């Protein structure tokens, strides 16, 4: 267990260092999300009341699409110079790599959300009528739901010829319950019309189930040829 966390943290630190130096994923995600915010704000010109109903969908779809960029980058850098082989032949546990990658993606997507949310608030003139603090668990659980499956399916698709296409094809259908939970919870909090508790519990359950499944299966994915 000690070695699992020590290797997880070493791999996470290495990934953050690589991203800091290359900024491949962060730049691409930021520009993509920025475009989505600007294009949507020009396409619709909603009143504040209408915004509360639609922005939950807009914001999470924007983050989902942007996350795919980061997820593809995560494993692509392990394939350059076949560095992943060095991990595969080491005694390091497979789950340490998976956890580090998922945590790294969580940090990158979380950073994106922290930077983009104020823009959404300004462009759509948002003000929550429900308990705004509940947006924090929704963001944390929702982001983890996206990155845990995304990291797993990105690892599955990384050695396929058309990985950029494969990842959304695998990830989006399985993320539907999570996206539904995120959008409904966000809308419920923004409009204050109903409680978001059910959707938060759904997100928590989704996270527990898929994190467990991904951890159980990742070893087979890593060592597959």
């Amino acid at each position, binding site marked *: 267990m000690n070695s699992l966390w020590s290797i997880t943290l070493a*791999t996470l630190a290495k990934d953050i*260092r690589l991203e800091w130096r290359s900024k491949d994923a962060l730049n691409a995600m930021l520009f993509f999300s920025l475009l989505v915010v600007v294009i949507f704000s020009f396409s619709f010109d909603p009143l504040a009341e209408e915004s509360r109903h639609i922005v939950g969908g807009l914001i999470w779809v924007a983050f989902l699409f942007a996350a795919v960029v980061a997820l593809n980058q995560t494993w692509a850098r392990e394939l350059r110079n076949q560095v992943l082989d060095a991990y595969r*032949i080491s005694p390091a546990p497979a789950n340490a790599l998976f956890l580090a990658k998922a945590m790294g993606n969580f940090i990158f997507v979380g950073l994106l959300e922290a930077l983009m949310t104020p823009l959404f608030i300004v462009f759509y003139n948002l003000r929550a009528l429900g308990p705004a603090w509940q947006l924090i668990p929704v963001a944390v659980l929702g982001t983890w739901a996206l990155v845990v499956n995304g990291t797993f399916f990105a690892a599955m698709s990384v050695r396929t010829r058309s990985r950029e296409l494969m990842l959304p094809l695998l990830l989006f259908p399985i993320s539907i319950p999570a996206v539904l939970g995120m959008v409904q919870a966000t809308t419920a909090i923004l409009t204050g019309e109903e409680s978001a508790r059910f959707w938060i519990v759904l997100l928590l359950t989704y996270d527990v189930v898929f994190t467990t499944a991904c951890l159980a299966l990742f070893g087979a994915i890593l060592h597959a040829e």
Partner: protein
Amino acid sequence: MTISDPSSATRSSGCVVVKGLIKQFGRFAALRGVTAEFAAGKFYAILGDNGAGKTTLLRTLAGLSSPTSGEVSILGASPRAACRDIGYMAHPSLLYDEMSGLENLRYFARLYGIAGDQRCEQVIRAVGLDPKLARPVGQYSQGMRQRMSLARAILHDPQILLLDEPFSNVDMHSAREMVALLKSMREAGKTIFLVTHQASLLAGAADEFVWMELGKIVDRTRSIPPDFPAERAQ
């Protein structure tokens, strides 16, 4: 400079055994029933034309490729179970281009539970590089990258070294230095498998030349045959 842990010499009594090894990629058979036994503490040069199955054999010994059928035993265990005793150097560098050599080795050392920088600096010096070189590996020359790749492979002081074309794009002087380093490792009791097209570099260094052709070991000799074409021996 010694680059081996002296206490590890007691572990070097095992050997590598492959039995009826077949590896197919779709309909193409890269290995067609390789059966061989390799003694511990010897230096084996694996030679053969492109497509002979040398790299596939090495990847199978490293545990990176599962055989379609047949068995591989490394020191009496499967390659995965024996991973601490295996050092593998591939044709690509297996290094992160954006990090310096020391940063790379520091990370890989953690995977093997090696703490501190001492061992990393020791192996970097052993391959003739400067541990303080801050340049990212992506800016290294091909020869420096090969040396750093060798440093990564020997970082955890493995009993068995699997080296895939370590001299490609390396100048003759550096290649001879690498051979001298490998000889000293063999003398320290390590078992070395080295795939190369430059057989002449290993004359006097390798204990045995293993000749592969069309996925099979066709011959094992103690020296390069005199009738071996000179241009192939270079």
